[in-house]
């Protein structure tokens, strides 16, 4: 039961994008269509599970002082594997994700889970935690990608839905649309959390990223909040 909890918490209760506000860059950048969103989500999930498992296995070997560089190296290795795989078998996804495929390395979700969970827990819970967070990330990206593609191009996964009936709003697939849809989704998540008696998201951006523990820029920001 508790193992299932490790998996399920990432999907809604601790959704990495809407509740923890991590990994905002890829969330905004690749959700121009449902297909790209799914590709990004799956790539990040594979890296998350792989790095969580390896970091959990090595958690007693890695010295505390160099843990962040060690984590980054492990994550970068998995990203390179995924990158080579996507390049070889899914070239269209590779072109669509472009620079954001190698940038999975610096995705806060992955480093955050390594630091917060995998470095303190055994292998099986860590793998499930990674899988849950990955599924949560993928679902949110897919939701955002579908909304933006539907309004911006009138299609979902390339299939015409409202195209031909309603003039699509191009702006939704461009940069401002990304910020806007993300803002509205976070507002909805806050509203739902409020109804269920939970707190809305407090921190914005890097305040949640545990890579910057003890960073005074973040502390001063929280004091001002």
């Amino acid at each position: 039961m508790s193992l299932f909890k490790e998996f399920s918490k990432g999907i809604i209760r601790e959704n990495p994008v809407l509740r923890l506000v991590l990994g905002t860059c890829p969330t905004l950048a690749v959700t121009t269509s449902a297909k790209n969103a799914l590709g990004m989500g799956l790539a990040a999930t594979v890296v998350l599970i792989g790095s969580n498992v390896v970091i959990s296995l090595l958690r007693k070997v890695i010295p505390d002082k160099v843990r962040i560089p060690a984590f980054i190296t492990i994550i970068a290795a998995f990203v390179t594997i995924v990158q080579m795989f996507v390049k070889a078998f899914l070239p269209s996804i590779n072109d669509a994700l472009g620079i954001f495929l190698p940038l999975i390395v610096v995705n806060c979700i992955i480093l955050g889970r390594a630091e917060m969970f995998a470095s303190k827990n055994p292998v099986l819970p860590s793998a499930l935690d990674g899988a849950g967070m990955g599924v949560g990330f993928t679902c949110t990206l897919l939701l955002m990608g579908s909304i933006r593609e539907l309004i911006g191009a009138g299609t979902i996964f390339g299939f015409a839905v409202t195209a031909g009936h309603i003039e699509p709003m191009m702006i939704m697939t461009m940069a401002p649309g990304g910020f806007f849809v993300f803002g509205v989704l976070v507002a909805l998540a806050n509203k739902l959390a409020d109804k269920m008696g939970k707190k809305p998201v407090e921190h914005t951006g890097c305040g949640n990223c545990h890579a910057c523990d003890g960073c005074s820029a973040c502390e001063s920001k929280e004091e001002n909040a």
Partner: protein
Amino acid sequence: MKEMLIILVAAILSENFVLSKFMGICPFLGVSKKLSTAFGMSCAVTFVMVLATAATYPIYAYLLEPNELGYLQTIVFILVIATLVQFVEIVLRKFIPPLYNALGIYLPLITTNCAVLGVTILNFTKEFTYTQSLVNSLGAGLGFMLAMVLFAGVRSRIEASDVPKALKGLPITLIAAALVSLSFLGFSNIANNLFK
């Protein structure tokens, strides 16, 4: 010269890293609350971007590429950047304490800032030369600074206004960012037309 100006202006305005490429969103949302911190953070980012490009370009062009190790790009670049940031921190603390006091607190944040890794990789995707890459990185940093400083101003206005409860905090910040980003759409293709 003209070509360099085009790259610089394009990187600052029409291809702004934050507002049209979505890189460095974390510090953009997290550290833009006060003008002074926003400015300090962007100075540090610009500094590290140019340094990182200066260091990674020769490594890729003269070490990885000729030995057919191009696939190691991601892993090598992130390690070089992480080391470089540590190194800069140590050098600044030892030799230029005033600069360290101004930028030091932002340095740990920068290793995991995707804008820095992003610009070093993008320079190769765009097939820039060494000088062009340096100019592009400088432009990317300045563009980041412009977005941060502008947005710090917008946020100080939001603080003073009455926002509906569900939109308080992050949602209204994102919607404001959408509007700022919308205004930057107006700059598209400005660089090529400006220096015709």
